[in-house]
């Protein structure tokens, strides 16, 4: 049986480990130079910080995952630095690109563990050099030992906001402000549910407490106004919950509102998507074990809906067992199923604590750029709903008119905000404006790539 696993983050590692334990040797593909995913990304050779410094509280988990990764690599058909840019479910083929050369991987069954990226809301000035995603700011520090600037502000919401601010301050960067767009009351209301994940909840409180104790400026319930600067970032302004306007001088800003699935391959595989109200995002349809309506395709990890690294590890192993079950093997799944169910309840509380700020995207001024790739303004997107072309009733029509989501990132960065802006303009729900359909190649590939 030919099995392919795409992705070597927490889900991919545990999926491959489970397959190997049942004598299946998968083709195992990751776009990065090494496995570990983004959360447990290892720095390139030459950087030498230990796991405790790199991963903090997560060091034992990271170390265990790296051990499993390193043990699995030589036993699987391991292919790093390889992009899967298309999937043909009919032919059961993956199209790949590695070192400028195209390839084809045939499979009978495939587990897609494609991970996630930051979910961002545009802010006026967000294309200036010095602005990165929250995840990007973390990668700079973790994988490269660098801060994104000398005086850094963090803006957004969600657990990563506090974690990254803490990591920066600990590493010696000057954190000039941590600005949470969620009101304190919203988080407080979700606190009872968060106690379902006491360890995670406690870690969050620890970071916030540490930042406060070190006198770092914190504001909650803020509305971002603009990232300012000529040629690069020089300041950030916002309005507080009572209407007062504030500004800090900084040379870098990290932005992020949680994560969104990198589900492009699931889309090209033909899996239907459903709007998940709790995550406020479209996710590919799958059952709790990772089975999808497309025969032979299984999903696990954040690429199939955001659940976090701990869930991803369990889900990766479970998807591998689902694949084995469907191939007629007898496997024991009850323990994993119980664990997934219990972890899932904490996630619901987390989403309630940090809801996606629809109002911020919908309230952007007309002259703010929302699409980095095509240089489109919010006003240009809003104009697609009124003509002169046939007015856009949904996102893909708006894309055809305006090129929103047609650029080099394929809507990864602007898609979530574009949906909010359009929904507000049309006066409908964000689910009703639909989602940008995926297209191959899922990332740009050179025309010169040889077969």
């Amino acid at each position: 049986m030919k099995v392919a696993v795409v992705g070597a983050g927490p889900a991919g590692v545990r999926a491959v480990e489970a397959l190997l334990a049942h004598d299946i040797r998968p083709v195992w593909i990751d776009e990065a130079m090494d496995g570990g995913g983004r959360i447990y990304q290892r720095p390139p050779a030459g950087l030498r910080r230990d796991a405790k410094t790199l991963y903090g509280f997560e060091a034992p988990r990271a170390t265990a995952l790296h051990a499993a990764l390193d043990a699995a690599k030589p036993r699987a058909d391991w292919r790093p630095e390889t992009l899967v840019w298309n999937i043909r479910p009919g032919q059961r083929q993956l199209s790949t690109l590695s070192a400028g050369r195209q390839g084809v991987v045939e499979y009978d069954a495939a587990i897609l563990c494609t991970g996630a990226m930051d979910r961002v809301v545009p802010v006026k000035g967000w294309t200036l050099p010095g602005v990165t995603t929250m995840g990007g700011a973390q990668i700079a520090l973790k994988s490269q030992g660098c801060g994104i600037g000398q005086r850094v502000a963090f803006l957004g919401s969600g657990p990563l906001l506090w974690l990254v601010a803490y990591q920066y301050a600990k590493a010696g960067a000057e954190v000039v402000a941590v600005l949470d767009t969620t009101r304190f009351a919203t988080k407080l209301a979700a606190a009872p549910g968060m106690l379902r994940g006491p360890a995670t909840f406690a870690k969050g409180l620890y970071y916030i407490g540490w930042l406060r104790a070190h006198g770092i400026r914190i504001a909650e319930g803020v509305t971002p106004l603009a990232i300012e600067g000529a040629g690069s970032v020089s300041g950030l302004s916002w309005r507080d919950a009572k209407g007062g306007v504030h500004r800090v001088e900084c040379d870098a800003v990290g932005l992020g509102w949680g994560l969104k699935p990198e589900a492009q391959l699931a889309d090209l595989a033909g899996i239907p998507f459903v709007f998940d109200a709790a995550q406020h995002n479209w996710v590919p349809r799958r059952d709790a074990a990772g089975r999808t309506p497309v025969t032979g395709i299984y999903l696990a990890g954040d690429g199939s809906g955001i659940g976090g690294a701990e869930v991803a590890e369990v889900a990766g192993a479970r998807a591998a067992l689902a694949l084995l079950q469907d191939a007629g093997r007898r496997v024991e799944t009850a323990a994993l199923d119980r664990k997934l169910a219990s972890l899932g309840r904490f996630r619901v509380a987390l989403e309630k604590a940090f809801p996606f700020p629809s109002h911020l995207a919908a309230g952007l001024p007309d002259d703010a750029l929302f699409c980095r790739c095509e240089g489109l303004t919010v006003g240009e997107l809003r104009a697609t709903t009124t003509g002169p072309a046939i007015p856009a009733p949904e996102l893909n029509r708006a894309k055809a008119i305006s090129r929103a989501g047609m650029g080099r990132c394929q809507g990864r960065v602007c898609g979530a905000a574009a949906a909010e802006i359009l929904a507000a303009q049309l006066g409908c729900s964000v689910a009703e404006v639909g989602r940008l359909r995926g297209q191959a190649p899922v990332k740009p590939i050179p025309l010169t790539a040889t077969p």
Partner: protein
Amino acid sequence: MKLVRLRDTDRATLHLTLEGSGLAALEGDTVLTALLAGGAGHLRDSEFGDGHRAGFCLMGACQDCWVVVEGLGRVRACATLAKDGMKVRRG
């Protein structure tokens, strides 16, 4: 944009060029780190005239850090390791 080296600074030095001018980096740097820690300020200009860009996601997804490396063609600076002698142009 200036990346600030905070940790792991004890590494071998690499020498690259950007638009023909010399630039020192450290072993293990990505091209993005090498350039932005080395004082390049930005990586490319928006095709639509809205100014400089210097990457955004740093994880290979947003495609906003394209540069041209001699012999490799157009690459994502964040997903390409810097090598001694690399000749880089802005994207």
